[in-house]
């Protein structure tokens, strides 16, 4: 989401006392968006960029596999698992850093 839009949206919601978002909250959300965006870029790369150039990468061999076959059958899947795990780990840390974690009231 674009920055002006975000500021505009957040500006609107600053009326009711209980829902007031602090600068810190906005910062948390921006960092979440940045993380989400970069992980999605990796997701796109291993899936669609490698897929698009599959025929050109055919001659590269990895563990006995042609590289595009390996990526589609195994490599990309391992990357996906890594992406999801990394996201869960980072967001868990980010929640605590910005004090928006759940529980322990």
């Amino acid at each position, binding site marked *: *989401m674009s920055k002006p*839009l975000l500021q505009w*949206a957040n500006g*609107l*919601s600053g*009326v*009711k006392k209980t*829902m007031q*978002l*602090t600068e*810190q*909250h906005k910062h*948390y*959300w921006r960092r*979440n*968006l940045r993380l*989400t965006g970069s*992980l*999605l870029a990796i*997701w796109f790369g291993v*899936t*669609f960029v490698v*897929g*698009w150039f*599959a*025929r050109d990468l*055919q001659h590269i061999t*990895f*563990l*006995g*596999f*042609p590289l*595009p*076959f*390996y990526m*589609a*059958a*195994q490599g*990309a*899947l*391992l990357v*996906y*698992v890594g*992406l*999801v*795990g990394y*996201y*869960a780990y980072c*967001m*868990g840390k980010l*929640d605590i850093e910005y*004090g*928006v*974690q*759940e*529980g*322990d*009231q």
Partner: protein
Amino acid sequence: MAAPIQSGFVSQLKRYYALYTGGFIGFVVMLSILEQMGVPNKILGYIFLGVTVMLYAGIGILSRTSDVAEYYVAGRRVPAFFNGMAIGADWMSAASYIGLAGTLYLSGYDGLAFVLGWTGGFVLVALLLAPYLRKFGQFTIPDFLGARYGGSIPRSIGVFAAILCSFTYVIAQIYGVGLITSRFTGLDFGMGVFVGLGSILVCSFLGGMRAVTWTQVAQYVILIVAYMIPVIWLSVKHTGNPVPQIAYGYVLEKVTAREQVLNDPDTPEGAREAEVRAIFKQRQAAEESKLQALENGGNAYLVAEKNKLAQTAAGLKASADADPQTLADADQAVADFPADVAAAHSAWKAAAESDKSKAAPIIAHAEPFAGPDEATRNKKRKNFLALVLCLMVGTAALPHILMRFYTTPSVKEARESVFWSLLFISLLYITAPALAVLAKYDVYTLLVGSSFSELPSWVHAWASVDKSLMSVTDINRDGIVQLAEVTIGGDLIVLATPEIAGLPYVVTALVAAGGLAAALSTADGLMLTISNSLSHDVYYKMIDPKAPTSRRLFIAKALLLGVAVFAAYITSLKPGDILFLVGAAFSLASSAFFPALALGVFWKRANKAGAILGMVGGLAVCMYYMYITYPFFGVNAPLWWDINPISAGIFGMLTGFIGVIVGSLLTPAPDKSIQDMIDNVRYPNLKNTIRNEAA
């Protein structure tokens, strides 16, 4: 939250499921001892399927509940790890379990679109939906649409779409249930459907989401063990390495080398393959000339041809020294002759197509987008990527999966449960391509080149069960099997692997039980989604918001029963093939839900008008494209940009995004309470911030 209670619950769960897994392994060992003692295979099959189905029913009875939160979201205390397993079973359907390895065997690299699509979609779930849906914390997906966009119209469209795609998908699952039960117990297809359905019902009827969750965890254990054992065995047989996922790279090299030999007419084996292909080429030409004659002569030609066959048969009967086999064949030819012009046209066209594919050289397993020219290759590439995207977005939009993220105790655990589910799912999806290559190696080296007089026993066994799964005919009458003489149906690969690997019958029964677990667990989740949409979203939220909980649960259970019987009835009519139904479910989900859900979280400006426009538009475009392109409907209009009907969701989802954006920008922004709701969804906890800052 009461943390000590939850952690006690988790350790109790771990103990139960460890015991259960141990017990299950003991059960398999006991059955294999029974097999050694000479108990017949059929009895073993009955015991296996009977015990597992009773086990699921037992878990269902133990988890019965009359509490609304337990019934709809399993009390929101399913730990991430176990939710991961439940999602794994919920996700992996009969098509993944039985069909996937076969598809990979038949289409090589191009089949990997399913592997990528059905796993990569979870990245979208994790990053864009799961944590936010959990924070929202209601009961169904239409709940979220209703709260985010306001009013009952977005909710109603959500209900309609959820039922449409879940129902399409559940038919495919029940079909799988009927197929497996009938094949392994000898019951007929309709009986198989109702027996399988009975166990689904006992489970979800009594305990709703709570029972379904704990049954699915049990089903995951069975299905993954059943999938792994034969593949590991096959890997040891061919490579000496018990980790098939690593070992099969080198097997793939050998398969590729073998493909080159068989495709090269200068080698002795290649020459024999070429001979068989030439015969198929002639047959194709013969079928095509018959089609041409049919086009010109119409019904008169058909009648004349039928008379010719009848005369041959009569002539054979009249002559005293006719070979009984030839006579039987001639009678069969008369009986099988197409009844009318339309039937003749489709039968001969199919025969010509199959001859044509047999006459072509082998397509290399590892080669992406193989084709004779650049245009074909580009078309294949485009369709591969479109299918991957369509399956991924569909994955991130199927309500029976998204619903499961309401069941974790917290947002943090929702994120972690996507990780566990993807890990558990990937175990099977990484193994399926290995199985395809190992089975291919077995067929290319052990079956091809063997003598017709001493075929491997599994070939006989399966050829006698079903000709469409396995058939070998000596086309060029040289007594030796050529690859072009072998016909293999995709489903054979998983079903016959235990026999190919030379394992005892118990493992075959185990694989069948695994397939049944995969189909039942997915069907469970889907039926619950359908009946919950009706009871919660339609009855409670729209018709009678003051209904007491006892009546809400009564309505939910009654609807579940109705949906199940209706689904079984539709399935017994055998509508279309499984792949068609699965493709349609994913396309419908990706078009209807994904744009409205993702933009609902990430774009505050998205409003009711946009959501309505996007969801209705996306669904309409997707359904229209499926209607005009699927052969099932008989319109067969030209494709848009060469995109195959299975990826119809591409157009639907694009329309959906445009619809939400345009509709929202043309109308005023959503009001304050909705803006607040979005903020609330975006942060795991907004309440204790001040306190934490002070600390």
